[in-house]
């Protein structure tokens, strides 16, 4: 079957790999002043971001950087919430703060609708996807997710030490997203690389970034073509057939949304599962309590999401404006740190303590306002099932070597190496 016209390569080559937009200078110097020169790529940020955020919240509270072409980092819950709700002054045209700004005319659609979309387009693009991600729809994936968790633990096969990040947590969202989109499950390692390129390749030279983005576009286009020839009951076929305002979706919209699901669904949930296991490995009283009282797990999951919120988003300032005591310029970045908001003592009692039976927990781990994480119910299900299964099968575990634990860099935070000693 011939490739449908809207997917013919030359029709959207221009967008392929970000060939238009603004590129700023790559700065990799160490950070000496977090209030005036912050960087979410600094090793201190990866190692332990919370003392940095707490310090800025007390003395700033909106930090500045000239890196990445200029940007701001609000650290109070109140400011993060206000910006997340204010789509009139802050655009989602790009949500990854780096050295590349897409052209202004990419709004209101953006490269990966609906996460990069602004109103009014955002509403319709999101509405299309909502039914796939309701609790009821997500619940139908629970049994297969649980079976996967069991098979991953079966594969530990008597080992004393396992890397919970790479041998367990990572595989869960990879499989869930591959099933959702109808991609070959054996492509998992490839997805992993695509996502890492996008999220952690921020300071690579522009040409290198473009080359890597092109590889992702071409992979997704191959999947689209495969689904055109062999339609099936999955989200890729759904997107190919979907209509928005009476028109089929543009190829760039379809591929952009697939890219969003791949990127937003994977490292985020991987991080949340890993950070929760890291916490339980270091806090035996919490671990023992959850083993004894599994019904507490949904409450504990909300607390892990608050305390170890994996996701930080970004916005671009639309026009020069005064906000929270600072003069923001058009096209300044906002690094929208939900982790910072979730540790604000003005919003949470004992904000830096992890209290697994916290009763009042208005956390913002999945964002606030119209961009509330589309996959939040999927993520919660994966996180709960992953922890439930782990605790049931492996009630006793601890960090094998705390110094061997490594954390990701950039806007998604979670353990990337997590050696756990299992068994009493």
């Amino acid at each position, binding site marked *: 079957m011939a490739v449908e016209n809207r997917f013919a390569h030359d029709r959207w080559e221009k967008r392929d790999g970000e060939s238009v937009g603004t590129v700023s200078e790559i700065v990799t110097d160490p950070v000496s002043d977090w209030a005036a020169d912050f960087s979410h790529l600094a090793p201190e940020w990866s190692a332990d971001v919370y003392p940095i955020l707490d310090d800025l919240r007390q003395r700033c509270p909106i930090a500045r950087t000239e890196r990445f072409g200029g940007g701001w980092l609000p650290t109070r819950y109140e400011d993060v919430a206000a910006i997340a709700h204010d789509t009139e002054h802050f655009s989602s045209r790009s949500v990854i703060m780096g050295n590349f700004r897409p052209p202004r005319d990419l709004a209101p659609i953006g490269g990966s609708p609906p996460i990069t979309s602004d109103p009014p387009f955002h509403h319709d693009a999101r509405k299309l996807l909502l039914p796939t991600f*309701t609790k009821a729809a997500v619940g139908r994936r629970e049994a297969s997710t649980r079976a996967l968790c069991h098979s991953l633990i079966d594969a530990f096969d008597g080992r004393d030490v396992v890397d919970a990040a790479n041998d367990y947590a990572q595989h869960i969202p990879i499989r869930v997203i591959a099933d959702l989109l109808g991609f070959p499950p054996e492509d998992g390692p490839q997805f992993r690389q695509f996502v890492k390129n996008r999220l952690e390749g921020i300071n690579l030279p522009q040409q290198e970034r473009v080359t890597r983005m092109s590889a992702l576009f071409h992979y997704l286009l191959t999947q689209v073509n495969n689904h055109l020839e062999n339609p099936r009951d999955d989200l890729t076929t759904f997107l190919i057939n979907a209509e928005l305002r009476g028109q089929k979706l543009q190829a760039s919209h379809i591929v952009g949304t697939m890219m969003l699901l791949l990127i937003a669904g994977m490292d985020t949930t991987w991080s949340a599962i890993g950070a929760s296991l890291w916490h339980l490995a270091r806090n035996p009283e919490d671990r023992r309590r959850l083993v004894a009282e599994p019904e507490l797990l949904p409450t504990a999951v909300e607390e892990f999401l608050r305390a170890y919120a994996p996701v930080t988003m970004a916005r671009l300032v639309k026009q020069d404006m005064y906000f929270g005591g600072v003069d923001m310029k058009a096209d300044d970045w906002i690094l929208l740190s939900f982790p910072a908001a979730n540790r604000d003592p003005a919003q949470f009692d004992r904000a830096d303590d992890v209290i697994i039976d916290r*009763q009042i927990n208005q956390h913002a781990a999945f964002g606030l*306002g119209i961009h509330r994480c589309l996959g939040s119910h999927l993520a919660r299900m994966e996180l709960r099932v992953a922890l439930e299964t782990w605790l049931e099968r492996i009630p006793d575990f601890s960090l094998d070597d705390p110094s061997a634990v490594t954390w990701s860099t950039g806007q998604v935070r979670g353990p990337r190496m997590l050696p756990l000693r299992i068994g009493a």
Partner: protein
Amino acid sequence: MKVRIDAGLCQGHGRCSDLAPGLFGEDEEGYGKVLGDGMVPPEKEDDARRVALNCPEHAIELTQGT
């Protein structure tokens, strides 16, 4: 006590139906919905208060009376 969801504020976080599944559900797009007429039986009033305090969008309204 009566509960209501402000549809202009609800973003479908789903905390209400997680915490009080007897009082709240979700619609076909995942936004919160009040089950029945929204009247809260006395034994569920604490649940309703807890939901209101956990909604990240402050979308839950509680009113006293019948």
